[in-house]
């Protein structure tokens, strides 16, 4: 138990180390290693791993850093995430990173890629676009080209070429990573008291800042621990939290939801590492093709993906049912167009399926949770009463 608590404490520290000490030490330990920072949400980290690199998730400064310079870069009506990231960049938190990737999720992140270019942060700054056409001969080729450009950027820095074996090996490691994460979610679905949502959060977020092999080991230890009884079951309702895929809610907010009587049985806080559903083929002669196929056919539902033909509202309802959830909490960052513009439709689908829901908005550095606690508490009570 003591050991497990130490593991959790270490994950907590790694997850919120805004200087990315572990990743930097990893890089410095050997020549030709690369650090590539990527923003939420999904990015095929396998391609970095395959060229002796580590893809590190930059999930924002949260409530762990005072924002002074960042505010001078953004108007009040723009979400908080990019200002925290600019603050980190200007404060040298991101030194040692060789390059940065800005996955296409919204225009704030898109324009932030240009700001990094202007501020000359990193040796490359890539806005990583995703096809919204899912035909392999159209969108598939586009996606492949995006990956190849990145590989080229990295080659220009450390001269390491991607090999079929190398990329397949990386794919295997990340397949394992996703499987272990899903095992944790499955276990928590059955025994949510064994690992709190906050603990789960530390464990997953830490995985964005350490090599995947190391994270897999952490996940295995966690699974071993929670395969046995831990904690006490409570009379809580079960909820899915939706809408926090980019700017991250402060830990206090996740805690408040839990403390007000809700088990969070699924969420989209760390959507990137859980993006691909199932395994990517890891034994082909064309691993780029395998990654492409996985993106086109195995992506989860998300505000970043055009969903006609496979509406995300229905998929959220399916998820809530699969997780046996009593309700959905819509929890999006203020001024987050992608999450907030999806919300009415998602709510409508929940209504149609008879799934109760509430919603609130946050900033990553929100410090007051009283109202949220009350709201979530009332939600939990009403479901219990109604049930």
């Amino acid at each position: 138990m003591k050991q497990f608590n130490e593991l959790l404490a270490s994950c907590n520290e790694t997850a919120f180390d805004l200087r990315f000490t572990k990743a930097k030490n990893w890089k410095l330990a050997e020549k030709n290693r690369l650090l590539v920072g990527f923003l939420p949400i999904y990015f095929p980290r396998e391609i970095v791993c395959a060229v002796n690199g580590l893809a590190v998730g930059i999930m924002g400064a949260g409530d762990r850093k005072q924002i002074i310079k960042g505010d001078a870069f953004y108007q009040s009506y723009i979400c908080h995430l990019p200002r925290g990231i600019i603050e980190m960049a200007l404060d040298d938190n991101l030194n040692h990173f060789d390059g940065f990737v800005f996955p296409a999720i919204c225009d704030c992140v898109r324009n932030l890629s240009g700001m990094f270019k202007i501020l000359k942060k990193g040796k490359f700054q890539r806005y990583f676009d995703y096809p919204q056409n899912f035909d392999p001969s159209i969108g598939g080729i586009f996606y492949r080209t995006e990956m190849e450009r990145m590989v080229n950027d990295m080659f220009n820095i450390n001269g390491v070429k991607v090999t079929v074996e190398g990329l397949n090996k990386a794919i295997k490691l990340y397949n394992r990573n996703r499987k272990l994460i899903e095992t944790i979610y499955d276990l928590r679905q059955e025994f949510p008291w064994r690992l709190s949502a906050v603990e789960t959060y530390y464990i997953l977020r830490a995985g964005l800042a350490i090599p995947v092999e190391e994270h897999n080991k952490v996940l295995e230890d966690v699974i071993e621990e929670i395969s046995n009884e831990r904690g006490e079951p409570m009379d809580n309702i079960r909820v899915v939290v939706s809408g926090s895929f980019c700017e991250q809610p402060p830990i206090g907010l996740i805690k408040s939801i839990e403390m007000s009587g809700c088990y969070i049985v699924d969420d989209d806080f760390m959507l990137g590492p859980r993006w691909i559903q199932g395994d990517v083929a890891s034994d082909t002669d064309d691993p780029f093709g395998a990654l492409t196929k996985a993106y086109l056919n195995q992506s989860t539902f998300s505000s970043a993906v055009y969903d006609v033909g496979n509406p995300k509202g229905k998929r959220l309802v399916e998820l809530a049912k699969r997780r046996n959830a009593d309700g959905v909490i819509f929890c999006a960052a203020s001024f987050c167009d992608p999450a907030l513009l999806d919300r009415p439709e998602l709510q409508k689908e929940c209504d149609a399926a008879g799934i109760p829901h509430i919603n609130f908005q946050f900033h990553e550095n929100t410090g007051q949770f009283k109202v949220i606690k009350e709201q979530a508490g009332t939600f939990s009570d009403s479901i219990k009463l109604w049930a």
Partner: protein
Amino acid sequence: MANPKEAIKEKSMVIQKDMLAKQFHELSKAKELGKKVVYTFVPGNLTELILAFDMLPVYPEINALQSGMRKRSGSYIKDAEKIGFSEDVCTYVKCDIGMMLNGNVGPTGEKLPDPDLLLLSYTGCFTFMKWFENLERLYPGVEIAMLHTPYQEDGRITEEQISYMVKQLKEDVIPKMEKVSGKKLDYDRLSKMLENSVKAENLWVKILESAKNKPSPIDSYFAGVYYMGPLNTAFRGTDIAVEYYTELYNEIQERISQGLLPINPEGEIKEERFRLVIEGPPNWTNFREFWKIFYDMGAVIVASTYTKVGGLYDHGFRHEPDKPLESLSKYCMGCYTNLNLPQRIDLIEHYIKEYSADGFLINSIKSCNSFSAGQLLIMREIEQRCSIAVGFIESDLVDPRYFSYANIKNRLESYFQMLEQRKIIMQQEGVPV
């Protein structure tokens, strides 16, 4: 005899007014006329392609801005908020949704027809995609075509990007248009339309560049948004658009020869005191009041980025009749909000120098992350590169709650005072102004 000034002022305006009235009337009768209707967006639009199929385009942003100008947007936005849209999101989307919830009545008071095709070409703005997902749910079962336009991340348009877009057009968009219209694409007809586009585009560039004159005969922002209308919406590629731009160009030539300054709703400016470059869209709910603050102070906008949301013709882009799909693709990728931030800064710097501006102003729009995220860095960079007085104001496109007249007026007055003082100092130092 008619007052020549009024005659000059009126003709192109009358043509445009007539064009719009006919367009909305035709739309209101679309179903009776058996015409198919395509909902699509302004930036990077495929107007020629739509018209080549004899379909009628509807641009939700235009409806939103018209609602703003007609003071309807406030209540539309509130209606959208009532059904769950957050206060925080783009108000164009909410205004459009609110308008649909209220019967989808267009600017002329006639009802707009439902779409037969939703054509999503989301150039330069991620929110367009969300907007369309919402429209798709309002019109279930309607055919949908998506044209994903890659961003100019690297500051250029690559061959791979062009081929990605052409493939989407050939294999997805055009077949869907053929299905909806019941017609095969006539490439000759499309090319003829693109020839017309080029004619109008050439004239448009001359019109924009007329603002290099000192004093400028036009205001490139407040009047510019009217001037750009036909080219950016339902008329590019038509004879009437060429006629409109020919007329407008002639009028401007006439103004130059007479030494006249830009016209405004109350007449014309008597003295050009400040030449400004503006970044960002205008506010529509209080458009006239907003404009008046400028012309009352003798401030003329000589170049603006907003008038480039429909394409950067002044930087050389032209549609190519002999390469229709390639050039439509390049067109989509070349619009202003699809440029990366360094390109946007370079463009603004170029405008400041080429158009001999005294100042650079940003109208930052609460709704629009595509424009607004990064503007404060743009401002800093421009200040450093051009040693020019920069100003910053905030408003919204169509949400009247975010237009504070007193606040904006105060800020602008201080800004103009600063410009005035700089002029005096420069004159004292013998710098030509």
